[in-house]
């Protein structure tokens, strides 16, 4: 639209810094990763090439594709557990808590941990679940266990618990927002028409809150999928995730081409999920009119 706009010169001035930044620190770096993913490792560094060996290795070597599968599995479990906890919570908050003061206070209570260090939140569970940890010592102290168990930490269970703890606010936020947008009279109308509370939940509230659920699930899944700190802190040998492998390729293994190829795979998976979720949410929105 050619209408009243800033003069061309100020427009350029406004745009130049962000544009240069985006090209230099976003576009080019992504391009470099993409390029490296086709290069060859040659001790001690790597050389330019154009070959698909790194990708072939990822999908042929069980060491790599199994990590991918495991990462997907853990991310799914975290997403499911978060949804299971977050949805009822958000539902009760929106539809059962009468006072709006109490509601926003409880909502803030769930969101607040986001502001508290991510690292601390992972660390806390290490101190709680460890064999020398709070929970074990509590169980031994109270006589429930005779000796500390190491079943609690350094496995997929501890990973799922910790990651759920870290990322659950991202699930609560969009669901809460979606539920709050549902007009009360719609729920009352359902009640008026003889629909039971459970029926209203299934037939009215759940479908209307779906965009929020999708958004929350996308956040939680993607964040978990790319995490490498929690696995390092609370994951054991069977808790290694894709980002950890990338880290080690860039670190000790010194195989940047393979690391880059893994990063490209991770990038593509995340982008596909975001695109899918975008479409689903859009479809839902259209469905609602």
């Amino acid at each position, binding site marked *: *639209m*050619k*209408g*009243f706009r800033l*003069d061309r010169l100020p427009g350029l001035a406004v745009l130049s810094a962000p544009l240069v930044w985006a090209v230099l620190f976003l576009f080019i770096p992504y391009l470099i990763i993409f390029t490296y993913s086709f290069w060859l490792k040659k001790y001690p560094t790597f050389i330019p090439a154009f070959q698909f060996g790194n990708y072939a290795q990822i999908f042929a070597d069980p060491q790599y594709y199994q990590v991918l599968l495991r990462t997907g599995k853990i991310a799914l479990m975290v997403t499911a557990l978060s949804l299971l906890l977050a949805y009822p919570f958000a539902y009760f908050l929106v539809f059962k808590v009468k006072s709006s003061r109490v509601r926003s206070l409880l909502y803030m209570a769930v969101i607040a941990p986001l502001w508290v260090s991510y690292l601390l939140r992972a660390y806390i569970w290490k101190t709680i679940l460890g064999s020398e940890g709070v929970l074990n010592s509590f169980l031994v102290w109270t006589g429930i266990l005779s000796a500390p168990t190491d079943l609690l930490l350094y496995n997929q269970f501890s990973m799922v618990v910790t990651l759920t703890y870290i990322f659950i606010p991202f699930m609560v936020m969009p669901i809460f927002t979606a539920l709050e947008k549902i007009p009360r009279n719609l729920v009352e109308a359902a009640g008026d028409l003889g629909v039971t509370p459970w029926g209203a939940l299934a037939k009215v509230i759940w479908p209307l809150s779906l965009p929020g659920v999708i958004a929350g699930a996308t956040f939680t899944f993607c964040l978990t999928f790319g995490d490498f700190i929690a696995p390092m802190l609370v994951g054991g040998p069977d808790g290694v995730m894709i980002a950890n492998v990338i880290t080690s390729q860039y670190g000790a293994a010194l195989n940047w081409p393979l690391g880059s190829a893994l990063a490209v795979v991770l990038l593509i998976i995340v982008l596909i999920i975001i695109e899918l979720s975008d479409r689903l949410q859009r479809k839902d929105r259209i469905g609602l009119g």
Partner: protein
Amino acid sequence: MKPIIEIDHVSRIFGGRIVAVDDVRLDIAEGEFITLLGPSGCGKTTLLRMLAGFELPDRGAIRLDGQDVTHLPPYRRDVNMVFQDYALFPHLTIARNVAFGLERLRLERADITRKVDETLQLVGLADKADRMPHQLSGGQRQRVALARAIIRRPRVLLLDEPLSALDANLREAMQVELKHLHRKLGLTFVMVTHDQTEALVMSDRIVVMHNGRVAQAGTPSELYDRPASTYVANFVGTSNLLKGVVSDVSKSAITVDHAGFKFECPPLRSVAPGQHVIVGIRPEKLQITGLVNGVAPPANALDCEVEERHFHGNSIRLRCRLSSGEPLLCDQQLGTTGALKAAPAKGERIRLAADADSLALFTEDDRA
């Protein structure tokens, strides 16, 4: 007199397809109160925004006081605007809002303060200077918007539907007030509205717009009494529009037949016998001359049956049907007590007549 604004064959096309303003030519005289009138989407707002500099014409030129301002940005034009949503800066006090335009001129602080005081006095808001916009009522905000726009004494004041956000009573009061202000300041006012009553009450001249073009420009009474097209006839006031065929053209009258009725219209148009035309009659110009009798109606008289009566307070509207099946509206003033009782009852068959002078004649081409 040299016009203050010349709009010279201006067109504005959105997205290369949608013609918002289509080859408009218009001169606006200094000191005039001119109104651009039309339904939404007729191009009136786009035209106003081009005068302000918010939109650039795709073709044509705009001259302000003889100077070409077509491509001048808004901040270099000596025009100011009252926005439809007022657009008062929410973070500034009323006084600072009003002072904004003067501060851009780098005037002396004391000078600005004095002028702001004067202007707020003028719009009756001297006591609200330190309030924030959201603390004022709609009508008060309207006055602030007005004060802010006139404080620079622009060559032209643009008003974009200035009264549309006000309720009916306030709107009427503000119409009068704006009119007073116009006279007092002697500025040129260009107003956009879709409200025909507002346009009729306030303007020296009205420009009716339709599909991006000027349908007709003229004084309110010209527009009302001599509409150039059926479109104008219907947009400004209400008109009964009856289709007919020209049966005779003479020096003194054009005779039109409509289903056995005869109209003798003033010879203001060139038409030929046999041509299909439309006759326009304002409902209030129809007089009841009596009940239908056996005698054939004379020229400019219509026989019809009253189907409904709508009481309007100072008048009554009769919804009638002609024997040809066409509906016909007729307004009767209720000036005297008992006039309501005297008005024809539902089902009565009455004869209505109009002066030849009050008839408008349109050709099929005028349908726009």
